[in-house]
Structure formats: structure tokens, C-alpha cells
């Protein structure tokens, strides 16, 4: 039996009927066509599916869409405002923080939350904050530099 949900995704309100077992990531990707959020492991370990749920970075592959009823969701598509990249997005581009790009949306969303909580993190704090996100291409060094760039950039604004 389907259940009605209402949530705000990237500033737009959506009402849909979904199966209770539908995962949030499938709702975002298949129903709303927001395919920037990726699935990499289905077990909350890789972080490719990370989105912001009421300001908290969560793995959307292990949240049911119905659990997000009434919530505000920000996905990678919602980070840039008025055509201007989020400082973390800018940092990833500047510092070559991505190669294949598959982990990137989740990595950027996680890093954005990290900087929300701690605007001037140390290298160790960045590494710790990104522990829930796997990248197989970059070796992380450029990702860490990207977050440092973003912290500096955001601090200047």
C-alpha cells in the first residue's frame, strides 16, 4: 500500500505516493530525476548516496523515503546557488579533488556539512569527517586540499 509523503528537496516542495519500502535514494533518483546522488554499496559504507536531511548528512541508501516525510532535503544539485558554485564544489574543481566523479556528490555534501560544523578544520579533522565516504581514484590528498581550499574561501566571504 502506497503512502503519501511531502518533502522539500532543494527548495522545491514535492508530494508523492510511494511504497513504504522505497529508499530515499531511489525516490530522489527515480521519481524526482535527481540522479546526482549515486548508489555505491547499498550498505551505508561508501557514502556515494550522501544527502543533507534536515541539515544532517545521511546515507540515503539506508533511509526510507517515508522516513523523510516532512523533511527538507538538499542534494548535490541544490548546493550551487544562482549559478555560483558552493565553496566546496569550487575547491574540488580547483584542487582536482575528483577523477571518475562517482563518489564526488556524496563527498561534497559531506564536506559541506563538515565545514558547517567546523569552519576551520585541521587535516585530521577533515580526514575524520570524511571517513564515511570512500574514494577509489584520488587517494584523498586532493580531496583534503579541496576542503581546505573551501574552508579558506568560505572564511573570506
Amino acid at each position, binding site marked *: 500500500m502506497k503512502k503519501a509523503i511531502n518533502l522539500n528537496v532543494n527548495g522545491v516542495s514535492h508530494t508523492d505516493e510511494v*511504497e513504504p*519500502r*522505497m529508499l530515499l535514494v531511489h525516490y530522489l*533518483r*527515480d521519481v524526482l*530525476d*535527481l*540522479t*546526482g*546522488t*549515486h*548508489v*555505491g*554499496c*547499498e*550498505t551505508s*559504507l*561508501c557514502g*556515494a548516496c550522501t544527502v543533507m536531511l534536515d541539515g544532517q548528512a545521511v546515507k540515503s541508501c539506508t533511509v526510507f523515503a517515508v522516513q523523510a516525510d516532512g523533511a527538507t532535503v538538499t*542534494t*548535490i*544539485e541544490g*548546493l*550551487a546557488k544562482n549559478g555560483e*558554485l558552493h565553496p566546496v*564544489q569550487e575547491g*574540488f*574543481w*580547483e584542487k*582536482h579533488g*575528483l*577523477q*571518475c*566523479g*562517482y*563518489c*564526488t*556528490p556524496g563527498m*561534497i555534501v559531506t564536506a559541506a556539512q563538515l565545514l558547517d560544523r567546523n569552519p576551520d578544520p585541521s*587535516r*585530521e579533522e*577533515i*580526514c*575524520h569527517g*570524511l*571517513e564515511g*565516504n*570512500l*574514494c*577509489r*581514484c*584520488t*587517494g*584523498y*590528498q*586532493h*580531496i*583534503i586540499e579541496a576542503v581546505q581550499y573551501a574552508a579558506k574561501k568560505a572564511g573570506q566571504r
Partner: protein
Amino acid sequence: MTEKYVGKRVKRTEDPRLIRGLAHYVDDISLPNTLHVAFVRSYYAHAKINSIDTSAALAAPGVVAVYTGKDVADKVGPVPCAGALPDLKVPDHRVLAKDKVYFVGHPVVAIVAKNRYAAQDAVDLVVVDYEELPVVTDVEAAAAGGPVIHDGFSDNIAYRLTSGEGDIDAAFAAAERTVKQRVLHRRLAPIAMEPRGVLARYFPGEEELTIWSSTQIPHLMRTQVALMIGIPENKLRVITPEVGGGFGSKLNVYSEEALLGWISMQLGKPVKWIETRRENIQATIHGRGQVGDVEVAFKNDGTLLGLRYSVFADMGAYHQLLTPAIPTLTGLMLSGAYKIPAIQMNITACFTNKMATDAYRGAGRPEATYIVERALDLVAADLGVDPAEVRRKNFPAADEFPFHTATGLDYDSGDYEAALNKAQHIVDYAALREEQKKARDEGRLIGIGVSTYVEICALGPSQAMPAGGWESATVRIEPTGKVTVLTGASPHGQGQETSFAQIAADELGVNINDVTVIHGDTGVVQYGIGTFGSRATAVGGTAVYVAIQKLKEKAHKIATHMLQADASRVSFEGGKYSREAAVAASATGTSEPVVPVGEAPAGALPEPQTEGKSSLTIQDIALAAHLAKELPPDTEPGLSATYFFEPKNFTFPFGTHICVVEIDRDTGDIKFLRYVAVDDCGKVINPLLVDGQVHGGIVQSIGQAMYEEVVYDEQGQLITGTLMDYAVPRASHVPNFELDRTETPSPVNPLGVKGVGEAGTIGATPAIVGAIVDALAPFGVKHLDMPIKPENVWRIISHG
């Protein structure tokens, strides 16, 4: 040519779509009425299929079709193996298991349903009656006899091969000293962050099939899948949209690619299958999987005389595309960076009830480097000399290139000592050893590992490759002056859209933003080979470069005609053809393209305005070439050139990695103090991308050295079937890398580039393991097998 872009840290043109979540991987493409496929896979490692009952699955809501191995056996041909070796046994590898299953994850039934949830539900409704058979998981046991896995074969040995040059017996007879060590290279899972995925759509009217697949080799896959499902190759289009990493795991042709194509043809609808991570670890190829003995013969002064490596190579149950070829690549690189007069490799390759092994980043070469570098450390320990000095003593000198090895290769160029010196200088090696000594006196466990690797890249001449060693490029300048580059090298994170655009922009003197690099679509791009074996820039980039030279020959001819000058008096610089170059440049000032970017009038192209000009931009020439009103006699209209570049040799990048670790006596925890990598990949197109490749490669080595192993139990059950159990390095596991380079151009291609994609995975494991072993030297440790975990270390410290 003025190099405005080549050699610079140019930001990637790929990135804006990727960082905004606007790129399209296979699963991001949705076509109307797409059906979804899920697989019933074997949970036994070896069993006979007595019967399969699919009735409940077929009756389940949303299920459209169900196919078993018997349904498709006569319809879809076997999964191809391109490895050709004498007396190679090749099992009949069907896309779905027919009578028996041979490994956990072996696909048995394909379910097609209206959505992925319905397909997955129906998987649980299929009843397969299995009869368990004896399981062979250990490669040495497989070689020794026991149950034979494949019917029709007398044993489990896929092939035996002995290779190498020089008199190995004489070398050991003459040796003043020898060392011998058993070395394990465990199975690794490549874990591309995007699992595999296939979308297939058949148009019955046009009889055209399109397959979107996350692959590294769209053209090779098209050829093979066309043969497997019996569709004319020119009616099959393969598109690789964004590919989320490969590392060799997508350098293959898989059951699912052909089967999805065939199912779409049966049902006349789009069908999609997206691999789960569990399926990815079960049924996407694994890497490595060797166990062998290395023996080295040497003199008291450290001069190497001979090296023998006798290895059991674990093929898994079937051959995938290059499975049997991988150990032979190990054999090719057993000379490492050293003069070794006699080398012998003895391969015994065996079938086991496990997933196939195949190319994983480095593909047989990391094994070779690890063997040789570990052996050099053992030689140094045996002689009581510094490991760096044993290496230095056996390097070929910079003037000895091309250098012939006893594995039959000719290394193109190198200066191994320069890279070693540079790395030693960066860490202040002598002081570091002093510091280590002092620390040891204080009871601290500090270790230093040195690896001086060489790798074989830019694969390669066609003689050495199963399906062509060349790469293709088409470069054309459109009427509006935009440059289009079509490359057969299909990247998946390496950044060729940027690096190839850098080459094109410099060679044509245009803005890099006016260059678009197109790849991964067999309907658009001329035939190509693909991105693997650190080949894309050295072979594919060279194809782009040479195609541009061809294009410029024609452009020069047109320019000469239009400027009404002698050919010898028209020169090309900064995107302009000029008569009397020096004078013309100042006379005309900045020359705008005839058709300014984005301002082409609708419906008609302007006439070229050439009258009275002493120079013409390449865009002017492109427009004139398309309007074809002012061309020299007998000139073909249009401005494009295609080139298929065939290298005459491989390239041989090299370098020195130095790793410094400290071990916690109480916990066995291993902490990186320094990691310095000096790599020489020839000429560098984009240092930013090279750094990224090196970082990523080293971290995969850290994974191999300290965390990763695919584990099967004695029953062939996969113990490490999720990312919970298979440990991929995370951000907190990696040190801050200090990178530097030396630059020794390759003579093999006009760009002088060598390749860098695999350097980190090849060069780093021996440095990391060497450092850990060195730290534990006070406990008498000379060698440890990977992955070296804190537990192993703690046991050594606690129990000796």
C-alpha cells in the same frame, strides 16, 4: 610550437558537470518503459544443477520474463577470452550457468521485471535444486590433483609456461650467495566506486541495438558482443557514458553485457541491470592471486646474477578476457630496474572455484615489481648493506638505453639513479637512517622502505596485444572554428577530455575552451582500443597529435593558396598562418576568427574575408575548407584528419618511492611518517592530473599492503562480500604525500610521454612493506605477506 597549455596544471573541463551532479552514468539514463533485470546467482562454489523451478517467479507481480542457462545456451555465444597461449585450456563459459555452477556469484537465472524491486523480489522465488560437488579453492591444491573442476579436462591446470633468457642454472651455479622467499599476492577486488551497469535498447524496425555499458573498451566490447549475440557489428552501438572508475575491472566483456542486449532484442524494450556491490565483489573480476617462490643468485659484492620465480597463478573458474595473460605480464617485468643476466619464470596457472582473476591496476606488473623489490631487500639484508645501495649497484646506467633485459624487453629510456638520488635528497636519507638508529636505541620502531621500480606502459605494439596495440584519433575543425577531437581511448576518470584538449589547443593555437573531446560512443567515434595499461596519453594522445599534424598539412596548403604565397613563406604560429611571419604578426594585430564564437548568422555562413590579409587564422581556413570556394585545385573539402597510431615499442616509466613508518609497540598500529614519490613518466601534459594518478595509485597500494584481501573459505564461500568486510582505504588511512618528478622523455612517441596510471600501484607496495619489515628488523623479521595488519605486527612484537 608555443606551449600554452601542455605542461600546465590546467583544471579539468570534465569537472563542472561532475561537481554539480549533472553527469550521466549508466544508471542515470532512463528510457521510457525500461524493464529491470536481476540475477539469481549461485550460493555454492561448485554444484550440479539438478533442476530449476521458475514458475513462482514468473507468476510474481511485475515479472515479464525469466531466462535460465538452458534457455540461452544456443542463443548467446560464450564469454570471450583473448589470451592466446600454447596449450591453454579454455572452459566453455556461458552467460548463464547451464548444468553446473563453478563459483559463488555464478549467474544462473535472469529475471526481467517492470522495476528493480519487483525483479529482486522474484529472485527469491526461484528454486534451484543443487547437488554440491567437491570444492577447489587453493591454487596449489588445484595444481596437485584432486577433484577436476571442468568436465572434459584431465586436471585443473590451465597452462604451464616457462619464459626468460640467459643461463639460469649457470647463474645459480656461479652464485656466491642466494636468497629464496615464498611470496603471496592475495586476491584483490578492484572496487570501482560505480559498479558495473548495462542498459540495452533494441529497435526492431531498424534492427539496431544500443548498449550503454560502464566499460573501458566500448569498441572491443561491441565486436565481441556482436559475435556473441549474432547481430551485425554495424547494427550495434556501444555507448559508455560517464564511467565511475575501472582499474581494469571494466577492461572486459561480461556475461551481463551480451545477455542484456539479447534480452532487449527478445522483448523489444529497453532493459537495465545495475550491479549491486555484493555482485560486484562476487562476479566482477579480481586482481592478483599468485603464490610463488623467488630465488636470487648474486655475488658477495651485491652484483645480481640470476632470478627465478616459480609461481602458481589462480585463474578462478573461468577465463575472462585477459585472465591467462596476466601472469605472463609478471614474467616480462622480472628484471625490474636492474641488470640481471639470467631470468626464469615458471608459471603453473590453475582453475579454482572462485571468480576469475584478470587485470587490476597494474595487471601482473605489481606482482613482478613486488617480487623483484622484495628480493633486493632480502639481498641487502643478507649482505648487511643498505637496500638503496644494492639497487644503485645493479641499475643500468643512463647511457645504456635502450636496455635489453633477460625477459626479452628493450627499455626505451631511463635514468634510475637520478630518481633515486632525488628521492634520497628529499628525505635526507643519511640523516634519516641516523635518526632511525637513534630511535631504535630508544626502543622506537621506525622503518624505511625503498622501491626503485620500472613499469611497462603504453600498451603497446600490436604484436604484443591480443586485439591491436594502436589507438585512433580524428581531429576536425568545424565551419565555426570549433575543434572536435574524437578519441578511441575511452577514459573513466583519467581526464583525457582535458589533457587531449591541451594537446590540441597548443598544436592548433586555439583556446582550450574551443576544443571538445568526444569518446566512448561507437556510433560517433572511429574504432579504438580503449583506456588501460597506462596507454591513453602515450598512444591515444599521440594519435591526436599526429592527426593534427596531418590536418595542418592540409590547412597549410589552403592557407598558401588563399594568401597567394609560396608554401615556404607561410608559417604557422599562435593559431595563424602568416605570410612573412614576423612582419605580418605586427601588421594585422590580433586576428579575430571570421565567425566569432557563438555569433554565426542563422541560415548562412559568412564569406571568408581574406582579401589583402597577410595572415589567416586556422578558423578562417576551416571555414574556407567547408565553403570550398577558394580551395587549391584537387583539394578535398572539409578540414579533418584521422590517424591510427601504432607505437613501435612499449614505454618504461620508473621512479623511486621512499616510505617511512613508525609502529606502535603496544597496538601494532602502523603510522606513516613520510611518503616520498619521485616518478618519471616522461614528458608531462598536465602535472595536476599526474599528481592525482600517483596519489590514487599509491593509496590502492596502501590498501593492498595493509588492508585488502578477497577471502574465500574452504567451501568457496566469499567471506568478504561487502564493503563492511572488504577494507578499502579511507581518508584517515593515508599520509600526506610528497611528490616530485624527473623527466626522461620517451623516444617511442613524438610527445615523449610514457604513462602514469599504474605507477602508484606498481611502485608503492614494496616501499610500504619494506618499511614495515625494516621497522620490525629488530625482531628478526625479513619478510611479511600482505596485507600486514596491526594484529600481525602486534603478534610479532608480543611473541617474537
